[in-house]
């Protein structure tokens, strides 16, 4: 039946979009499908993907965390400063994660205890974190010693370390969301927080943890990006909140909460965004076109998503007169 086929296409819209982009880029440039280039795309997406995974947790509860870009910056700034002053790498990295967690806790406190809209709280945190980081670094860029970038470029068993980190985070997040009580309760909270409270779920606790996870993911993503770029610049992590939300939504996460997945969903979205940018670089496209093309793709994906949910709804509605739809007997 045509309708079913259409629905199946819509259901797998992100996948189809991904395949189309891949095919087009592969046809346009023979370098694109090069194994090394594909590995590159994976490594480059790892940072965005991890922010997007944290963001997915928050979006699932029908919240949002706009502060991730600022949190990335301030976490990495702290780590960078510590590395500069001769502290061991592990301690500096740990400190960055703690900074991310603290930012998450502050967000969570105001959202859950003070009942302030997540949008407002995290927007304030975005500027606060950026401002704090700029003051802290005196707006100077810091170039990292080689031992930092060595992490980003080395491999274990042929797999680059950033990809390994991404894989671990992905699997952990996926299992948490799909197989743990906490994960399933997040979906319940996102569906209807009032119902969740009545069903005996601690909504406050769930929301709190979700913002902390998002803060920690942002810090971890910042560290991954640091090991690849080797420098903390004042614009580090800028606009990351948008690519993170875009990646999650591209992967089918609903901004209204209660719907979305890490695998393939969010991971897919992040890799897709990176693929487009990578492809444009390889094609030598005008750099001014990057944001335009990326935003068009995101718009298209969200459009598809809204068409999909409407189609799904009408498909699953029980017809009053099923006989009207019976074709050739």
């Amino acid at each position, binding site marked *: 039946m045509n309708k079913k086929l259409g629905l199946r296409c819509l259901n797998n819209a992100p996948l189809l979009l991904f395949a189309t982009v891949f095919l087009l880029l592969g046809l346009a440039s023979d370098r694109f499908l090069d194994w090394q280039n594909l590995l590159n795309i994976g490594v480059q997406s790892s940072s965005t993907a991890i922010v997007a995974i944290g963001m997915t947790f928050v979006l699932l509860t029908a919240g949002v965390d706009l502060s991730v870009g600022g949190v990335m910056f301030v976490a990495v700034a702290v780590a960078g400063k510590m590395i500069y002053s001769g502290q061991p790498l592990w301690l500096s990295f740990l400190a960055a994660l703690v900074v991310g967690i603290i930012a998450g806790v502050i967000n969570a406190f105001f959202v859950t205890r003070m009942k302030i809209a997540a949008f407002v709280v995290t927007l304030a945190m975005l500027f606060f974190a950026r401002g704090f980081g700029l003051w802290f670094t005196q707006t100077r860029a810091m170039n990292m010693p080689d031992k930092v970038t060595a992490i980003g470029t080395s491999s274990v068993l042929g797999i680059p370390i950033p990809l390994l980190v991404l894989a671990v985070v992905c699997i952990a997040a996926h299992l948490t969301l799909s197989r*743990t009580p906490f994960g399933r309760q997040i979906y319940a909270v996102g569906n209807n927080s009032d119902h969740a409270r009545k069903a005996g779920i601690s909504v406050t606790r769930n929301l709190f943890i979700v913002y902390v996870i998002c803060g920690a993911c942002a810090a971890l993503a910042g560290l991954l990006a640091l090991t690849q770029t080797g420098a903390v610049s004042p614009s580090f992590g800028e606009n990351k909140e948008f690519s993170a939300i875009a990646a999650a939504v591209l992967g089918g996460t609903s901004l209204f909460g209660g719907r979305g997945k890490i695998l393939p969903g969010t991971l897919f979205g992040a890799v897709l965004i990176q693929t487009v940018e990578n492809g444009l670089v390889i094609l030598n496209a005008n750099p001014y076109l990057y944001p335009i093309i990326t935003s068009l793709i995101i718009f298209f994906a969200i459009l598809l998503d809204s068409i999909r949910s409407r189609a799904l709804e009408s498909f699953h509605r029980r017809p*009053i007169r099923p006989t009207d739809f019976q074709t050739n007997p």
Partner: protein
Amino acid sequence: MNTGKPSIKTALRFDSIVKEFFGVRVLKEVSFEIGEGKTLGLVGENGAGKSTLMNILGGNLQPEEGSLWFGGQPFSPRSPADAEVAGIAFVHQELNLFGNLSIAENLFVNCFPTTGGLINRSRMFNDTSAALKQVGLNLSPDTPVDRLSAGEQQMVEIAKALARDARLIILDEPTTSLTDIEAGRLFKVLRDLQQQGITLIYISHALEEVANLSDDILVLRDGEVVGNGPKSSFSQSKMISLMVGRDIDHLFPPRSHTPTRKPALRVEKLGRKGVVKDIDFTLHEGEVLGISGLIGSGRTELARILFGLDPVDSGNITLAETSILKLSPAARIQKGMAFLTENRRDEGLCAEASIADNMTLVAAPRFKRGPLALVNRESISLEVTRYREAVRLTKSAQNTQQVKTLSGGNQQKVVLAKWILNQPKLIILDEPTRGIDVGAKYEIYSLINQLTQEGAAVLVISSELEELIGICDRILTMRQGEITGQFNQGEFDREKILAAAIH
């Protein structure tokens, strides 16, 4: 469990429970008890204190005075979790399910079985299967809940109570959104539960259901027990007079008008693929026309089409001799149409807004004054006062009060006032008395009478056949989107109408 011994233990005892809100006593020394494995029918008008009483039992509220005994021991739940641990389950009128989760996940959402931190899916699946079997639902535990019908969701709620080994299940208006068939299925399940020795508290405005299911009856009025005893000592009319505090000889006001032969609304060959087909009828001025049919028979969909909310494929709709087929809902309202939807909370009211704001919502353009066409507050307050009296809104409510603080019956009166203020010629009422008490129902019926007296035409959709028989001049039956029968007043026969709606 019922051991078969003749002595009946007390499952639950309320002892002089007093509850106050801001110094107002809403429960005045309420005392009663339920025997183990018995079913108590709890009846009372909206605002009589039923919900407060049950919220105390469910741990949502704590009483000021008095004590509770459950299973022979003092029981003072501080939270819903306490009540749940004790074995008390609540099936709320508004279902508390998560559409994006599976049936199994809904059953165990706050007590997932785990092994090593991960959900033990096979155990969850098996336990859910067992509970679903008990309520006669033949569905996979992995089915997402938003794919279920209202009746199936109700069963899932009961399965949830069973999966948690509840010994006492409270059902609050469980049949309001069910079809007759689904309700029949529910009663069968409840009888099974009674057999298994589970204690039930059944709250409903449908007194017939209460009488059929219960062993004992408890009647509340104004926070006091006004009647308590075995059901054999309560006739339906006795229940009603106890609830209302006065005698209502008839559930329905006497008819005070006769319909004219002047057509108000003419519907010809109306069709929409998959929804309705060949709908043909004429509604006259001063007539009350009822539409009977099961939920899902296309009644509400027809109303939405008539009001212009959904498109049509074929046919014509004529209001006052002009076709309105191409008009938007806003234009139809201007032509004198009104539509009270079945879902007053989400579609009929702005819950946060005041009574006055809600009442003047539709007729707002009437209050434009001056060159800037600003709304004139004085004339609004005059009209609001007039119409709140017309619909007999409770005197204790302020015009500026938020409608969400009103009882169901009073909320419905606000919705009615909102439409009547616009002086409609055709009023479509979809389940106008759902979930409201006997007294308020009577007042709404009186209002319908009065509107027809003034020449308006009324189309009433209802799942309660008694109600249609009581107030309509004519009843149409619908099934699978088609009109299957027409009955004039004088030839209303319950059996025949039901047969036309079902077969």
